[in-house]
């Protein structure tokens, strides 16, 4: 039972109009408000993917917890990984409340992930082979996420906005944490600098892809819908430009080189000119869970789910016994 199979309903066009008028007035929508099924579906797609990506995103970083170079670094990284799992919990709660009226639950969200119906973010399909990858994820992947989240928090769905406010507050620690790790390497020994540069070379395309393909003459219909519903307020390319404006100067300040010799800021248009990565990779490889680490990380998630099943069941059994005792 996929979370995306929501019942087809005939909707009153006047009611839909009234709903869109609320959006246009800048009103916020609550979980129990009437909403068009299509608005609900767009939210489920976005928020379930966001929530599951927080959880899958903890995996590449958690790999580095036992191998962190110092105890201090280990404490910080562990705290950060825990935050990501916490963000996952918040977002899954928001998604669950949207699918709950149709008898769907968190278990259905996870099963969609295991079945490949629910995607997780492209960056989390990539390997993190060195400590510099962990640093770079904290600095630039989190940086990209923060830019996206600051846009999403302007959205029309109040429960998602409430979750994002808490997440953004915690992300301020993540940003400094990632910058601190990257500064230490970038300003460190030649070997450390080399390690960070190599990580940047490995991650550059994935970072550009983070925001999705650029919208050209024709905006994809999903994008148009999300803009219309004010679920998002900026395009992929606008977000990518913001990312470049914020982070390319930081990359330069660390004495690193962006692996794109065509990259430059065009004063005339006020935009960054750069070489696009191969976006078909997103659709054909990542989209099919065939990225370098897709299967391994899905396996890790699935096996945690299976191995902990007895804990969930034991907790429920105890509760059932208590309920029975209460009835007697």
């Amino acid at each position, binding site marked *: 039972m996929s979370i995306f199979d929501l019942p087809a309903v005939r909707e009153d066009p006047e009611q839909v109009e009234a709903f869109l008028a609320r959006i246009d007035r800048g009103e916020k929508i*609550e979980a*129990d*408000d*009437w909403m068009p099924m299509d608005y609900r579906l767009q939210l489920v797609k976005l928020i379930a993917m966001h929530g599951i990506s927080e959880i899958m995103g903890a995996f590449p970083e958690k790999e580095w917890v036992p191998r962190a170079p110092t105890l201090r670094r280990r404490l910080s990284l562990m*705290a950060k990984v*825990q*935050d990501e799992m*916490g963000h996952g*919990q*918040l977002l899954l*709660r928001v998604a*669950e409340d949207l699918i709950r009226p149709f008898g769907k*639950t*968190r*278990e259905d969200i996870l099963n969609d992930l295991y079945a490949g119906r629910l995607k997780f973010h492209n960056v989390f399909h990539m390997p993190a082979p060195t400590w510099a990858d962990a640093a770079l994820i904290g600095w630039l992947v989190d940086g990209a996420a923060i830019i996206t989240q600051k846009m999403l928090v302007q959205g029309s769905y109040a429960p998602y906005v*409430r*979750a994002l406010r*808490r997440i953004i507050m915690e992300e301020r*620690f993540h940003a400094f944490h990632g910058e601190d790790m990257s500064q230490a390497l970038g300003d460190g020994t030649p070997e450390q600098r080399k390690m960070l540069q190599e990580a940047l070379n490995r991650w550059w395309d994935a970072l550009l892809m983070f925001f999705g393909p650029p919208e050209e003459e024709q905006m994809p219909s999903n994008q148009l819908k999300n803009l219309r519903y004010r679920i998002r307020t900026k395009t992929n390319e606008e977000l990518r430009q913001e990312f470049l404006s914020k982070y390319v100067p930081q990359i330069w300040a660390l004495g690193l080189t962006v692996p794109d010799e065509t990259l430059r800021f065009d004063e005339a248009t006020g935009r960054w000119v750069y070489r696009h990565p191969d976006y078909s990779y997103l659709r054909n490889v990542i989209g099919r869970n065939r990225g370098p680490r897709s299967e391994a990380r899905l396996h890790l998630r699935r096996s945690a789910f299976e191995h902990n099943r007895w804990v*969930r069941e034991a*907790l*429920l059994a*105890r*509760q059932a016994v*208590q309920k029975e005792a209460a009835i007697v």
Partner: protein
Amino acid sequence: MEKDYEIYEVFSQKEPTGKYESQFSLLAPSPEIALAMAQENFLRREDPPANLFVVNRRHIHFISPEARVALRRMDNKAYRMPGYYGRVLKKWHELKARRGIGDRLLKVEEDG
């Protein structure tokens, strides 16, 4: 899983005299686990709260979306606000002067 887990709304208080603040909600198999998770999920780095409690969402009565519309107040409640009675202070000053009563005897306090 969640078919049996229940939704708990989490509330905390910063100080014993402070108001109850909603933190967020979580899924848990029992109120005890919900309390343990609430600390882990919402109070990892905040200053320690004075109190923390969870409420099964089934036990919260929400106002309906239709009724929420009626919550919007018309702009005609000025007489419930202290500012509406601002003339009182001016009047006390005027009366004091008229009767020759000094500041030491009658203080006119701005905040009532």
